[in-house]
């Protein structure tokens, strides 16, 4: 089993946190996992993205030229990466910031209203965790409990943040698929 996941969005949307939390969870579930962020000052304030490879054997390359799953947190990143999505793959997009989804019939498309849900939970900044919850639900590889533990590990010091994140994660998990 090898799952290649690309999470993309704009700088402030916390896409790297999503990747880190999920990657850390994959580790806790004893998977082989690699996390590769986009880096460098090359595109300031532009899009940020990261690649996760989760597998039950050593991961050869942490790069995903053709990911099996794409998470797009806004319109520009959707545009930038959808063409690279593997046929038969899945796309999760932020329904609140994406208004046109290009035609691709060979992949499954799921819109997730992460900003709205986040707002309803009282913190739009946790929108990324809503998306992560939906993602976990969809992938069915990593246990939601492990993801909670992962959040605990990574944000433990910041109690409030951890709590709201978990709430958001749960909401995304329960709500998926949103219709």
């Amino acid at each position, binding site marked *: 089993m090898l799952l290649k996941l690309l999470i993309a969005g704009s700088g402030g949307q916390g896409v790297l946190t999503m990747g880190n939390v999920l990657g850390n969870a994959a580790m806790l579930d004893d998977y082989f996992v690699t996390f590769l962020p986009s880096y460098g*000052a*090359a*595109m*300031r*304030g*532009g899009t940020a993205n990261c690649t996760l490879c989760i597998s039950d054997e050593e991961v050869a390359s942490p790069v995903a030229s053709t990911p099996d799953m794409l998470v797009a947190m806004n319109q520009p990143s959707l545009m930038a990466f959808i063409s690279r999505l593997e046929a038969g793959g899945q796309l999760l997009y932020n329904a609140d910031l994406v208004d046109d989804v290009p035609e691709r019939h060979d992949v499954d498309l799921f819109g997730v209203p992460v900003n709205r849900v986040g707002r309803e939970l009282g913190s739009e900044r946790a929108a990324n965790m809503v998306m992560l919850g939906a993602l976990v639900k969809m992938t069915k590889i990593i246990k939601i409990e492990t993801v909670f533990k992962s959040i605990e590990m990574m944000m433990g010091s910041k109690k409030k943040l951890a709590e709201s994140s978990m709430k958001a994660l749960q909401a995304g998990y329960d709500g998926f698929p949103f219709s």
Partner: protein
Amino acid sequence: MKIKNPWPKYYKKDVVTHYCPGCGHGIVHRIVAEVLEELDLGKRTICVNPAGCAVLAYLYFDFDVIESAHGRGTAIATGVKRSRPDLFVFTYQGDGDLSAIGTAETIHSANRGENITVIFINNAVYGMTGGQLAPTTLINMKTTTTPLGRDPKYDGYPLHITDVVAQFPGVVYAERVACDGPAGIRKTKKAITNAFQTQVDGLGYSIVEVLSPCPTNWKMTPVDSFKWVTETMMKEFPTGVLTDKRSKKK
């Protein structure tokens, strides 16, 4: 319907810069282009780009540009100017580039009184590499390599390199200005005009230090960054003319 701000002739049109919102580089870029146009220098200009956030400035400037290894701008400018004294040569450098790794080149090009101009963008951090300590970082200011704030005991004090070179006989014009609002931006343009004219008149080395906002690494809004320049940065780095030997040299 007449446009009141026609496009600067030596600035590329319809190019989106890679700079963060509210970054001072964009403002100073435009000013440089405007002054080169007003002094009619664009056609015979060679600019030396730094390694720093402005490393890609050649994508925006519409005059000849050569890139430099980090910190070596004034050495390259020396080579250009000495081989082609008829050209107008200026470097565009950040504080890390000019006052850390480039210290020796800065000091000695200034001491030789090279007839070049240096545009020195002081944003008190290493912008491009993600906000590390710069020689110009203020005391107690947090950076990614001074997580508890700059501690003079370990990290030394804010370095006033422009004040240093201003004392050299070969440095004809040196001014510190602030990109902190309309007034400061106007002063910046005036200073750059004086500096460029100094070279045109063949008088020698000129340098303009611009206190410039880096909202991203300062973790402030652009508007707050402007305020921070005025209220905090200028306390350590007062603006003003640091030397003006133009009359003497004429």
